[in-house]
């Protein structure tokens, strides 16, 4: 018990500082995003009615609540997380099953469980819950990544929340779970699987970019012939190459099918907007176009705090949540963007550093899960605001407005810090 209370000595303060810095910056930018020069909205505009409160005040309350959560995490015995990982995972999955039936609908997605005027998104919490379960499985005695059975179990562990969240029509959050493949890769999964996935995605995008697929097929044919004649003309090699080419052609052929039959119309549009946002700047490309205009108009040093016009006047949609980065881009310019991106990269690298110094596989796998989840959010969120990724509605960790996501990310991070603080007390199980 003495160790539990004395954690401050072993706390990784660098991570905490980065965490606080990102959170405060995010908070200021939420204020800037909702700032209306004509409305009476000061930074600390307090109202007794929560629903009437401006967003930055709500966020301030969420931030305060995070501190309580942090305290709770630090007080709870470190062994709790590993011991109860599967139970919490199971319970959360159960909640996710329930959400489509008893959840309330917000913004077209039925992803919220309401308690009074407050609502939480179980899908946000599914992230750290899955991270714990995956880490526990990887950390279990005798675990080997090259075992096909283990691989299937791990894929199942991330597929279940992914599917359940997809059922809530929250594609963005669902896709977050694909990032666990990076954790698997770190823990020994064959890079071939990861590379095969990346190559497929690359061909998929290429198929979208090239209007006339005949050229693509012709290119593949030429490439196949060149590789066949360049190397040894063994029957087996030729067979493998030909099979590979057929697979690639199959992927290309499936693109159209997937686009028109699997993706929903608004998702199809987002993919199309990514390829060519200027084709219809008011239709599906509106978000990306406006977001790029806001960021691009910031220039090198930005327009100054609260001086942004694009975000303030609602040209950018969701400017306090998913498109919060626009406010930084517009008001703080490239310099501000550099600061925010540097903070995130610093956080990611620090989390990897922490993960690598753990003495057991559970803690290390959990650390990588944290890093990878943050990374996915960071990459996809900023990527979509500057037009590098399709618009997938996921928040920027600690930065975007929202209680559920802030708490979920805080829990995710501070469980790692808790484990890290006690790394000396665990048996090495690497």
């Amino acid at each position, binding site marked *: 018990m003495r160790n539990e209370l004395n954690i401050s000595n072993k706390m990784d303060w660098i991570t905490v500082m980065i965490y606080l810095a990102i959170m405060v910056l995010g908070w200021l930018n939420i204020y800037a995003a909702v700032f209306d020069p004509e409305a009476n909205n000061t930074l600390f505009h307090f109202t007794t009615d929560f629903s009437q409160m401006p967003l930055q005040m709500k966020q301030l309350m969420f931030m305060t609540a995070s501190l309580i959560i942090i305290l709770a995490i630090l007080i709870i015995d470190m062994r709790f997380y590993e011991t109860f990982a599967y139970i919490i995972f199971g319970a959360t999955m159960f909640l996710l099953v329930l959400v489509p039936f008893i959840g309330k609908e917000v913004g077209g997605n039925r992803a919220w469980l309401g308690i009074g005027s407050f609502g939480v998104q179980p899908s946000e919490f599914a992230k750290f819950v899955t991270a714990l379960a995956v880490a526990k499985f990887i950390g279990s005695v005798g675990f080997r990544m090259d075992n096909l059975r283990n691989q299937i179990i791990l894929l199942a562990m991330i597929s279940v929340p992914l599917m359940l969240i997809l059922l809530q029509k929250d594609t963005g959050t669902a896709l977050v779970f694909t990032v666990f493949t990076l954790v698997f890769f*770190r823990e020994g999964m064959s890079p071939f699987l990861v590379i095969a996935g990346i190559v497929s995605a690359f061909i998929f995008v290429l198929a979208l970019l090239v209007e006339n697929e005949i050229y693509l097929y012709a290119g593949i044919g030429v490439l196949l012939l060149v590789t066949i004649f360049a190397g040894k003309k063994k029957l087996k090699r030729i067979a493998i190459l030909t099979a590979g080419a057929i697979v690639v052609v199959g992927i290309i052929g499936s693109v159209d099918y997937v686009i028109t039959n699997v993706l929903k119309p608004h998702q199809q549009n987002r993919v199309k907007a990514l390829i060519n946002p200027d084709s219809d700047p008011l239709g599906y490309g509106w978000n990306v176009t406006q977001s790029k205009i806001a960021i*691009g*108009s910031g220039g090198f040093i930005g327009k100054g705090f609260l001086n942004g016009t694009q975000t303030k006047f609602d040209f950018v949609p969701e400017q306090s949540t998913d498109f919060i980065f626009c406010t930084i881009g517009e008001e703080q310019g490239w310099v501000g963007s*550099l600061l925010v991106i540097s903070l995130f990269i610093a956080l990611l690298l620090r989390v990897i550093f922490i993960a690598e110094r753990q003495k057991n596989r559970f803690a290390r796998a959990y650390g990588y899960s944290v890093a990878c989840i943050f990374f996915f959010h960071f990459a996809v969120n900023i990527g979509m605001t500057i037009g*590098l990724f399709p618009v997938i509605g996921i928040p920027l960790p600690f930065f975007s407005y929202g209680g559920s996501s802030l708490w979920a990310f805080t829990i995710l991070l501070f469980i790692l810090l808790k484990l890290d603080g006690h790394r000396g007390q665990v048996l090495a199980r690497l």
Partner: protein
Amino acid sequence: MNEGRKEIIQIVFIGIGIIFLIKLFFIQVLDRRYAQLANSNAILKETEYPFRGLIYDRNEKLLVYNSPEYDLYVIKKEILRFDSAKFCKVFSMTREELQGKFKELKTRKEYSPVKQTVFLRQLSTIDFARIQEHIDEFPGFYIQPRTTRAYTTKALANAVGYVSEISKSQLERDTTKIYRQRDYLGQSGIESQYENILSGKRGMRFKLRNVDGVEKGSLEGGKYDTLSVPGKNITTTIDIDLQQYGELLFNGKVGSLVALEPATGEILAMVSGPSYDPTLLTGRKFSSNFMLVSSDTTKPLFTRPLMAMYPPGSIFKIVQTLIGLQEGVFNYDTRFACDKTLVNCHNHPNPANLFGAIQYSCNPYFQQAFRRIINQNKSPNTFTDSSIGLDNWREYVKRFGLGSPLGVDLPSEKGGQMPGSKLYDRIYGEGRWKYSTIYSLSIGQGEMLITPVQMANMAAIMANKGYYYTPHLVKSIAGEASDRIKKRNETGIDTAYFSFVRNAMSAAIYGTAPRAIIPGINICGKTGTAENPQGNDHSVFMAFAPKENPKIAIAVYVENAGWGGRAAASIASLVIEKYLTGEIKRQTLEAYVLKGDFQDQVARAIKNQPTPQLVNLQE
């Protein structure tokens, strides 16, 4: 076994961060397009159209003013829901028209779905009232007020001119870069001549707005805003009552009337018949109405007083008289026989002296008198002599303001044509023409063409006994007297000769134009009947009154109305009476003119012959 995997993941993380920073550097620092797009997004440029200057008559009666009209704009991207059936009802359009309109929008070069684009232009106040009630139901549609020209009277349409949106070619020709698309521009008349005075200056307000187009205050406290400057008001020299009366008399006739104040050159009335209703060329129906008006075979847009060139006919005999007297080639007592071999004449005391020749408008007299002006034996060669004489004569004529534009302050004034030796050399060859070739000029026929305003100016010269001020239409601008140079133009002919001519003109009224007699007013005038090979002769009359202290000089030209003593003299006389006394006592004459049938059987039968009534008057 997992060597290097940590590094791979680190590289991926850092790599993404660097890619983002590079991409951000491109869109934030290198590509300034986004900053411009942001401005067009959030900054609404609102044009404040200036009020065009008003136009008044000489007695400060309002003639032209501005009336509100409304343009309907659309910002395509802001159309969220659209009830096309209701829209069609409110805007009284058919579904096809609506679809066509949207299609047409997209074909416009300047079209952008995020910018305000004109959807319907120039809605009337009545349309506006109906639409205003429903405009909230159609987000994305905005109404912007603007003003269009309105007129207190249908009269004076040609002189005032019309205003319309600047055309593409005019915009391209505008080197000042003041005008922008959809700006109004004076296209003719005073509106065009005084465009830079009437137009005023456009104001611009920069307003911030949010995504719904709701205004959020002005940009940097209105630092860049400019106020519109209204155009200056113009007071014309026109007496609108006289103008209206003149137009009334010209109803159904083709021709011109120009009345001047001899002492100043101010144009009191300027009738161009037929005219048009100026209201036609305003508002939404401008295009279709313009087609209608401009394709009308009677050419109502043609400003006849300044642009129509006619042979002056006998009124020119006055000028011949003055030149001859000044040259000393004949005097008051010179008599010529009324020899009708070359030119026809009426029956009158024969042979007449100069006074009688003017009084009875004797054609053979002036045919012979003109020979003396042309052939003064300055060269033994009769061809050369004619050439020298003609050019000498032409110099005199030009001093009467004939043969070149007077400089009236209206666009496209024509100069007419005063032939000199060059013209005939071109037509017949040098040395191949002489007096007998050109004698038609003696009685204001032949190659000689002058405009109605020049005829009125001739009358003003007679009234002034030898000089004129350039006729003009604008008296003052914004209360200050117009800075147009009021140069006194001298003819260089002795005043004494003018006194003689004026006496003859006074008598001529009784000789050839008894209808022009106004009881109690001493009127001087001269008729003309200009031969017209294309049809009936033109009726011409120039006059001024009162003789003792001339207040008005007038010229009337009625096409195809025959004898000058009938149509033209009657109209001129009525206008003079109206101007000098303010009322018309000769109701019968007025009715005669309004009836407008100057080509009755008798008139045609006795053309070129004095009426019995006239003969009686001479006795």
